[in-house]
């Protein structure tokens, strides 16, 4: 039976494929190369390239060149988990870093735990990721609680905003950060309202009309994706902004290439979270990154996620080097002892289990405002390059 033989042949083909390990140290990266946040995937690619350059110039990892395998999550938790698993079973990586979606990260840490592979998160902010207390999971990036408690909430309070509207997307990150914000606002006794939106929505007129009736003076927009562009543009059209200011709670969408094209003048006076600014260099490593980026890509770095991934790769490489092996237990032990200078500060992971601060390092963040199409840091005061402008 010809047909059955085809089946058998295919089968043997699959069987015959055995992967031989190459002689390099492999680090896996997970992130969205396709989907609504594909721009982050591009930023990751840039950061990865720079990190590989930097590491291999110094002799690689464990004396061998370092190889990065970047697996696409498409921003979907299922694909994220299966991609994560592939990095372990197919590519046999020593350690995995990355991720910029909380929902994907929450799925991936389960796989990391099952296979006992170290995983360093760069930009997935949900508290539970580290709060769950998995010993294989680390985070060298922001956590919702850190971002809200230390930056967003004090920013709102210090600048005298009286009425807040929270707009949040239907994702783990959106839900988490909104809840934390509500908690803080309640404590500070600032009145607020919360609205849910779909991340992929394009028409927000209905929601915006409802918001306008509230007469807020600041909108906290927790939408990670191009949905933010439409939201901002339409908020401007209905006259909500710039009378009320809008804060992009994630940050990168306000920095993507298409931001100004999509929002036009509505971008003026918009606020966004960031951890990178050309005038604010937390460490010498930050300047080195900036220069290397300009040299390699011929422009200024814009999306701070390129820097986050660069950081975590360095952290991973450093740990493997100190562990002097690719053994998972050794790497985890080495990670816990990390004291490394990266572009945003000195990485040191918390060691007390029970809260989100376990295996967590919170980098400093900035609140930036677009003024005349220039990025002006307006918070915290120590890092400010200008002052906050409110709209009329």
């Amino acid at each position: 039976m010809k047909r059955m033989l085809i089946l058998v042949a295919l089968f043997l083909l699959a069987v015959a494929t055995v992967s031989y390990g190459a002689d390099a140290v492999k680090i896996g990266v997970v992130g969205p190369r396709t989907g609504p946040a594909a721009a982050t995937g591009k930023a990751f690619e840039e950061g990865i390239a720079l990190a590989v350059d930097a590491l291999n110039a110094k002799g690689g990892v464990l004396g061998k060149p370092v190889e990065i395998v970047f697996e696409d999550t498409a921003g979907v938790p299922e694909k994220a988990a299966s991609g994560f698993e592939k990095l372990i079973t197919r590519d046999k990586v020593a350690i995995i870093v990355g991720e910029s979606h909380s929902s994907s990260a929450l799925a991936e840490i389960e796989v990391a735990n099952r296979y006992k592979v170290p995983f360093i998160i760069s930009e997935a902010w949900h508290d539970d990721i580290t709060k769950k207390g998995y010993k294989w999971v680390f985070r060298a990036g922001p956590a919702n609680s850190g971002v809200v408690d230390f930056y967003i909430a004090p920013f709102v309070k210090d600048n005298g905003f009286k009425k807040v509207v929270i707009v949040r997307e239907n994702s783990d990150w959106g839900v988490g950060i909104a809840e934390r914000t509500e908690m803080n606002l309640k404590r500070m006794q600032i009145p607020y309202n919360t609205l849910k939106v779909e991340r992929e929505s394009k028409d927000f007129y209905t929601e915006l009309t409802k918001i306008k009736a509230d007469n807020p003076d600041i909108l906290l927009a927790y939408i990670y994706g191009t949905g933010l562009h439409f939201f901002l543009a339409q908020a401007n059209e209905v006259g909500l902004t710039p009378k009320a200011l809008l804060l992009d709670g994630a940050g990168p969408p306000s920095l993507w290439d298409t931001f100004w094209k999509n929002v036009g003048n509505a971008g003026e006076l918009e606020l966004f979270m960031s951890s990178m600014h050309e005038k604010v260099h937390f460490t010498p490593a930050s300047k080195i990154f900036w220069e290397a980026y300009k040299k390699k890509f011929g422009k200024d770095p814009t999306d701070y996620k390129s820097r986050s991934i660069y950081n975590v790769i360095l952290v991973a490489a450093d740990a493997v080097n100190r562990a002097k092996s690719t053994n998972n237990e050794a790497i985890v032990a080495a990670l816990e002892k990390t004291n490394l200078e990266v572009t945003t500060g000195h990485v040191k992971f918390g060691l007390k289990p029970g809260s989100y601060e376990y295996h967590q390092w919170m980098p400093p963040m900035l609140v930036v405002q677009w003024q005349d199409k220039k990025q002006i840091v307006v918070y915290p005061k120590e890092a400010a390059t200008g002052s906050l402008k409110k709209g009329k």
Partner: protein
Amino acid sequence: MSEFLLYLINGIVIGVINAISAIGVSLIVGIMKVVNFAHGELFIFAGYFSYHLSQSLGLPPLVAMFVAVGLTFLVGLLMEWTLIRPTYGDDMRSLIITFILSIVLQNAALLIFGPYPLKPPALIGGATNLFGLFYYGNQRLISFFISLAVLFLIFYLLKRTWFGKAIRAISQDRQMASMIGIDHWKMNTFSFGLGAALAGVAGVIVAPIFPVTPSGSAAISLTAFVIVVLGGMGSLKGCIIGGLLLGLIENLGAAYISTMYRNIFAFIILILVLVIRPWGLFGQKA
């Protein structure tokens, strides 16, 4: 009260634009009995063409829009000639082939145009104070008037010109039409191209308001299908009434019932119509 008026106006504006898109589908269904699943992709391709023509080639926005529609028309002709024509008569096969084509074009769009939403320049910026009650985007208003103009044009084309009469003849009785000398093969190709062009018209009208993305095409196709089914396959009047109804139901529903379920109203309408009155409001009972 002013909010209700805003939702109403939004519904009408969006409804009229969607009606044009629906006519594109209805035309092809009426003439060829083929549901063009790749409709949404033609819509976004037109948007992308319009963007690149004005951004990369520097054509003035209005010219870019026209050229983009023309290109989409040609793409439609090509599609019909290479893929649809051989499946003519085999309902299942043409359904499958346009579905596959839709997926291929979606992925091709991602590859060619990239994942970022692209917005061709608006013809006019800012907002107008309507009735002294609220601000409404100017581009939306312009699009509304352009859509009305296009609809009048289509009406004229179908009711007054020979071509329009031929289309109506074929959709009623193909054999008869060919017996009186209408070359129905050429009509097929041309109608498909026209259907594609209408998708393109809707695309270039909408793109300056809502930027185009590769993942947005499925929703566009589905909206058009719902309108066609609601209004009745092959009925021009049905597309317009259907488009308005859908626009109103969606906007009012989203405002007063639930914003999260905005997209579900269309599908509920679809299923209700198919179950209760499959030939729609103004369609012919098969």
